[in-house]
Each structure stands twice: as structure tokens, then as C-alpha cells.
């Protein structure tokens, strides 16, 4: 048997496969298909202080080997979360992680303080990289000074594992990873979606109501892999790789590039079983290649 366990800060994961925020609902949407407690972790849908309606329809467009979305953080807010979602996700036997979002620094801090009191939430993923909101979101994650300030403030407000989710829409993502590390983040996760757009040439209208949106899916994988590789060389904290991972082979590439763990996102839309298939596939890869543990292949890219 190979070992799939990994750690991020003090937090142990039974395996290195999590589901990405916004692609797995609150987990219960997938319970008809498999036991979601088999996952290493579940990152819940982005949560804000107040309830948000998100952006107008259309908020999704299919693109070659990917999709654009502009959902805009539709969620029912932290009060609803505590009352209705938290009791359900508390029953999952895996690390349940809340992805937090804000328009202002104070929002992030208030959310962190509230979530710090929820025993069954293992960690926070600090989302400073949502490209689809008018205020906050990516504005924090594309400015070094605000990245520093929000990470510092949330770190001070939150006692457990803190993951900072980085935006790829910057000149050097490594700089932002370093800032997160300096300010006490336990890990960085990357990448959030790449800002993109599409136009319907028949109507000459943008395909999304917001004109621009976030690109995800296999189309972004090479970009994500490059960023994960660069970041993993630059920081000591774990890097959680995200971006177009559709199967175990994709996932292994991220580990070889230096990722400690990975998140499966868009793949779950096409095959709700993707994440568990990826866990099994990683296990097979390790066995076939005579590795005893997932940690053995971390950063094992052969550059000779």
C-alpha cells in the first residue's frame, strides 16, 4: 500500500486530492455519485458576509477545452452558512475548508473570526483572486500591498490552517506567493481562473453578461503547471496545484512540478466521479513506479 497522506501546516489530509471551490457546491450535490468523505478535502463554494445574487445570466460560456464563468460569488452569506450548510458539512469525514471572499478587508476579517469558531471547519482558503466581482476579489490578489494587508489581517484573526488562493492574472505569481508566505499563510493554492472573454459573432454580443470572466478547464493547465512549478521553487510552504486537472496523469504532473496537493475543479462538471478516479489513479501511478508515498514524487521533475 502506498501512502497518500500529506500535511499542510498542522493539518493532515488522508490524500492530496481536494475539490476546488465553486465546482463542488457544498459537497452534498455529489453524494448520489460517491462518498465525498473519500476526498482529501472539500473546498466549499465561496462565502461572503452578506448574501449575494451573483451576476446576471448568461454567466457561462463553453470554450475550446474549457469554459468561462462569471458566476460572481452567488451565495447565501455567512449567517445562512452557519445555520444550514455547516451542520451538513460537519458530517463529512474529511477536511472541510471554507473559501472566503470580501469586498473590503474588514469583510475577510469578520468571516475569519466567525469561521474560527466553527470546530469542524479545518481551514480557510482566502480567495483574493475571484475575477468576477466588481469590488474586492481579484483587486486584492493582484496588488502586492493589499495581498500583504489582507493576509496579515486574516492570519491575525484565524488560528487554524490558512491557505491563500492566488490569481494568475499578475506579472509574477511568485511574488504574491512569497508575500503570502511572509505573512504567515500555511499554504498557497493556485491558480484561480484566468481572465478571458468570448464574443458571439452572430449577435456580436459578449458571451457573458459581464463581458469578461474566468477561464478554467484543460485549456489553462499548462499555464497553471508553469505557475505551480515556479512557485514551488520559490516558497517553503506547500503549494496546492489547481488548473485543468482532468485525470490522474494531469495530477501527477502537478506533483512532479512541486505541488503538495491538488484541487479538481471543472472536471467534476463533466464527470462527477473525476476526483475519486484521480485518487485511485495517483495510487496506481505510485505503485507502478514503486514509490512508497505521494511525498516521494513532490518536485521530482527530471531536469537533467
Amino acid at each position: 500500500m502506498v501512502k497518500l497522506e500529506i500535511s499542510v501546516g498542522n493539518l493532515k489530509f488522508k490524500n492530496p486530492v481536494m475539490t476546488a471551490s465553486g465546482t463542488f457546491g457544498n459537497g452534498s450535490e455529489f453524494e448520489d455519485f460517491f462518498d465525498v468523505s473519500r476526498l482529501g478535502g472539500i473546498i466549499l463554494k465561496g462565502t461572503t458576509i452578506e448574501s449575494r445574487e451573483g451576476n446576471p445570466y448568461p454567466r457561462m460560456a463553453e470554450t475550446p477545452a474549457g469554459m468561462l464563468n462569471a458566476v460572481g460569488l452567488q451565495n447565501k452569506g455567512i449567517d445562512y452558512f452557519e445555520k444550514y450548510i455547516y451542520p451538513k458539512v460537519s458530517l463529512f469525514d474529511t477536511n472541510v475548508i471554507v473559501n472566503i471572499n470580501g469586498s473590503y478587508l474588514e469583510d475577510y476579517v469578520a468571516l475569519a473570526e466567525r469561521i474560527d469558531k466553527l470546530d469542524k471547519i479545518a481551514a480557510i482558503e482566502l480567495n483574493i483572486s475571484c475575477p468576477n466581482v466588481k469590488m474586492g476579489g481579484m483587486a486584492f490578489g493582484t496588488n502586492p500591498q493589499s495581498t500583504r494587508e489582507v493576509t496579515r489581517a486574516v492570519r491575525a484573526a484565524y488560528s487554524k490552517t490558512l491557505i491563500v488562493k492566488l490569481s494568475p492574472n499578475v506579472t509574477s505569481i511568485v511574488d504574491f506567493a512569497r508575500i503570502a508566505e511572509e505573512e504567515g499563510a500555511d499554504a498557497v493554492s493556485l491558480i484561480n481562473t484566468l481572465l478571458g472573454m468570448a464574443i458571439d459573432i452572430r449577435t456580436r454580443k459578449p458571451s457573458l453578461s459581464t463581458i469578461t470572466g474566468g477561464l478554467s478547464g484543460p485549456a489553462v493547465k499548462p499555464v497553471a503547471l508553469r505557475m505551480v512549478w515556479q512557485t514551488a521553487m520559490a516558497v517553503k510552504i506547500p503549494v496546492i496545484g489547481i488548473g485543468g486537472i482532468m485525470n490522474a496523469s494531469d495530477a501527477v504532473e502537478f506533483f512532479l512540478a512541486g505541488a503538495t496537493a491538488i484541487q479538481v475543479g471543472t472536471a467534476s462538471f463533466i464527470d462527477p466521479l473525476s476526483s475519486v478516479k484521480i485518487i485511485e489513479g495517483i495510487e496506481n501511478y505510485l505503485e507502478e513506479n514503486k514509490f512508497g508515498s505521494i511525498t516521494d514524487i513532490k518536485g521530482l521533475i527530471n531536469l537533467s
Partner: protein
Amino acid sequence: MPKRIEDFIIRRNRKLNDDYFVLELDGMRSLPEIKPGQFVQVKVEGSPETFLRRPVSVHDVDYQRNILKLLIQIVGKGTETLSRMNQGDTLNLIYPLGNSFSIPSKRDRVLLVGGGCGIAPLLYLARCIASQGIMPDILLGFRNKNRIIEYEEYYDLGNVHLTTEDGSRGLRGLVTGHPVMKDNLFDRVYCCGPEMMMKAVALHCREAVISCEVSLENLMACGIGACLCCVVESIRGNLCTCIDGPVFNTKDLKW
């Protein structure tokens, strides 16, 4: 009913005309209960341009022979790929998805209104209603006689009325102009078709104080309520077409 991911074998791909085809699918396991108005998410293989699954409403279910039927209009690359699939090919579905049309009570007078490819979910609905001992009226509208989709099967299930916009078959005009619609002798109207048509029918029903349910079609990624892409504005805020719908009572919509 729990959702499933399952392979089906194409029993027949029946071309109706240049725009429409019916896929008859053999289930490899016995079919679960499928409600009228529910849909499937079809995986389209073969091209990165057809990356996401395609939502398709259930056209008919034959439990005895374990067959699921999908009536599909060719509108883009995904449906075009599906139209070229052959007998014996495998098709992967996630199903049954979404809510369903409400089943009327025995005393209700029922009208089904379908336009174009929107007639797809109405066949199975008509079958379910007919099995309750209710004889619905079924009003089908098409652009012209060349755009008519086969509707012979509906005759076994209700009183069929036909309109075409140019009068080349049935009554000339839109479904909303048909006498059966104007008579307002119904307790419930079920409608599926182009949005303009559904809105007109909804407006008519609102004025006549008749319950009206419509089946919506929005762009979807997951089909299971995870991505929140397929929202429709309702009086209670944004709802997902995939899990809160696809069937909505029009009193709940901002129409």
C-alpha cells in the same frame, strides 16, 4: 431518485428531418423512475470544442423495453456530433436530473403547449397524464410544414391541435392565437418552446388566472446544482434551472 452516471447503447438514431433526430437508447441497467420534465446530461465525445455535457430533456421512456428517447435539434457542434452517432455506439448520461412537471388531479382540464423542439418533453408528460385517466389537449406550433416534428404519437394521448406560422399545416398563426388557447377552459397549462412563446403563453395564463408551468433551457455546465451557471431570475432571487427547474410555475418567474 438518486442521480446516476451510466452508459447507454444507441438502439436507433432516427433522423426526422434536417434539423431533428431521435436517439433511442437501451439502458444497461433497469431504468429508475423518471419524472416528466426531467432531463439528462449527455457527454459528447470527440472534440475539445464540445467540452461540457449537453442538457437534453427526456422525450419518452419505455420501462417495459428499458428504452429512453431523446428528441434533439441540431443547434451547434455538440448536437451535430450526436446526430452522427450510430446504432451500437455508447452514450454516457448523468440522469435523471431536475424537478418535474406537476401531475394534475383527475378533475383538472389540462392543456399542453409545445413549440418547435419544445415539444420534446411533452410526449412523456402527455403519457404520464394520460395514464392518470386524463385526456389532455395538446397544442403544437411550428414555423411551417417543413419544420413539423413528428407528432403522431401524441394522438394516442390527447386531443391534438396544430398551428403553423404560415398556415401550411393546421391553423395559421401562433399557438397563442389558437381557439383552444383562447377558450380558457383549462385548469392547468404546461408549456415548452422558444422563450418568446412561453412568455406569451405565461402572460395569457396570468390574465386568465390559469396555472402555467414552463420548462426552461439555460446554458449549463454541471446540471447538478454545483456550478450555479444556469440561473434564472425568480421572485425569490436567482434559481438554478438544473435543480430548482427546469420546470417553473410562471408565477415564480420575473416574466
